[in-house]
């Protein structure tokens, strides 16, 4: 018996194994064709596009204010963060200044959405590792955040709440009381969740040194967000190109060092505490004032082009917008973070075990809605 892979030797042949598109561990409709040799993955061919709706083309036929609702449906776990990017792009093109209060509310909502998204990651990643309890913990906290969203925007997901130049409604009256209570619960919930899984011995054995990607490779593939920061690269749009009120807020960027599955999990867990810190500071700094800049109902940005981006829970979400001066964009190209993160999967899966393939895919935290658009 030898532990060396037998690829290419006479009498052996690589086995093809199809995984997906309907497979619970692919987190959506993603299909990968694995060629395996025994327990080892030799190569993987990814197939995406099952959710392709032609969003970019659709955006060219909608007015700017109508596009916001299409952006909700890209990364459907982090709706507010998506809405922010298209609003920011249009505002940048028009040279609009958003009122302070609206900026603070946007940041609060985006950070809450980041928490909700990381809580979902925590739950599903636990499931991938074979632990049933984390999903209960994760969803409990996520539910709390979503019911707060419901009281603010009227919807639990697909909010369509941000507007070009501000936000739709001011915060409800009982918001302060609710958010104080929610933040305390979230802090406790995150600590409990952390305690349950992060340093669990079985979990460590499944994730430590699995699916390693080096910092150079990660940059070359265009990885961003927690996946890139897990390799030790300090790149966060909130720090490198501050938008909204992030430059007035004091927070840290958690970094990993090995770039393995555990680091990617750990960076997200630490980010949750940072998000709570950001929200607390926002609540201290926020003051009364207008929530909309004086804009006309139909936005007509001048001709030109702009690239706007923001730090989504999954990474650097960018929009390249070309306008010829009408009420609709001439061309709108998105840079979805999951698209690039998923591209690196093939590289990370080489020479991994089949059992780890699910873990590695899960640790990237992809959302197929924004991969396929």
């Amino acid at each position, binding site marked *: 018996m030898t532990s060396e892979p037998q690829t290419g030797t006479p009498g052996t042949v690589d086995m093809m194994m199809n995984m997906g598109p309907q497979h619970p561990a692919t987190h959506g409709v993603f299909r990968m064709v694995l060629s395996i040799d025994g327990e080892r993955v030799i190569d993987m061919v990814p197939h995406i596009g099952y959710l392709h709706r032609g969003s970019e083309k659709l955006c060219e036929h909608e007015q700017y204010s109508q596009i916001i609702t299409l952006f909700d449906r890209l990364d459907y776990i982090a709706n507010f963060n998506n809405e922010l990017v298209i609003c920011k792009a249009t505002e940048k093109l028009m040279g609009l200044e958003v009122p302070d209060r609206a900026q603070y509310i946007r940041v609060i909502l985006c950070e809450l959405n980041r928490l909700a998204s990381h809580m979902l990651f925590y739950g599903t990643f636990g499931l991938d590792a074979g632990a049933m309890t984390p999903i209960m913990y994760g969803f409990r906290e996520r539910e709390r955040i979503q019911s707060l969203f419901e009281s603010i925007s009227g919807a639990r997901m697909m909010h369509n709440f941000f507007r070009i130049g501000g936000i739709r409604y001011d915060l409800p009256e009982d918001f302060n009381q609710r958010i104080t209570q929610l933040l305390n619960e979230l802090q406790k919930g995150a600590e409990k969740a952390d305690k349950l899984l992060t340093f669990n011995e079985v979990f460590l054995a499944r994730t430590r040194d699995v699916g390693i990607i080096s910092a150079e490779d990660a940059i070359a593939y265009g990885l961003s967000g927690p996946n890139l920061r897990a390799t030790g690269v300090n790149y966060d749009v909130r720090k490198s190109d501050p938008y909204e009120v992030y430059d007035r807020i004091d927070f840290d960027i958690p970094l990993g060092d090995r770039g393995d599955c555990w680091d990617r999990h750990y960076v997200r867990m630490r980010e949750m505490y940072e998000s709570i810190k950001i929200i607390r500071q926002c609540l201290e700094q926020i003051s009364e004032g207008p929530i909309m800049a004086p804009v006309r109902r139909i936005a007509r940005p001048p001709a030109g082009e702009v*690239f706007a981006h923001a730090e989504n829970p999954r990474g650097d979400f960018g929009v390249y917008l070309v306008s010829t001066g009408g009420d609709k964009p001439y061309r709108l190209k998105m840079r979805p973070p999951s698209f690039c993160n998923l591209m690196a999967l093939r590289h990370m899966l080489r020479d991994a075990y089949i059992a780890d393939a699910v873990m590695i895919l899960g640790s990237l935290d992809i959302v197929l809605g924004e991969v396929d658009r």
Partner: protein
Amino acid sequence: MESLLVECLKEFKPRIGSSLDDTIATVSSELIVEVGRKLKDDYRTLCDFLRCLSVVDYEDHFQVVYHLYSTQKNHQLVIKSDIPYEDPHIPSVMGVWVGADWYEREGHDLFGIIFDGHPDLTPLILYEGFEGYPGRKSYPLNDYKEW
């Protein structure tokens, strides 16, 4: 930023412009790989991160737009290249940034642009056998019948 770009790319004779806070260099399409390699390796630019690769259909020509970023210098540069509408070809930049892979396949799917030197231009987000290039302006939005 503009003078830096002029200095770095002087051998490629780029057209330098700007839009809002971005500096844009327009270069000839045959030179795109050399320009990319230069911007990646030059110590003044160090653009190691391909942030976005977009194709824009201007109806009489296509434009391929590269948004580059440097993780060490923290700056963004934009490189553009115009290619003709009929028989659009441009060299693939996968040798410079391996992350261009899916962007180029997507550009091939939706706009029919052929990225010379790309190892595998099979359909990525459309299915095998799809006819036409749905990203182009000439492709109708509503008249499309799938079955």
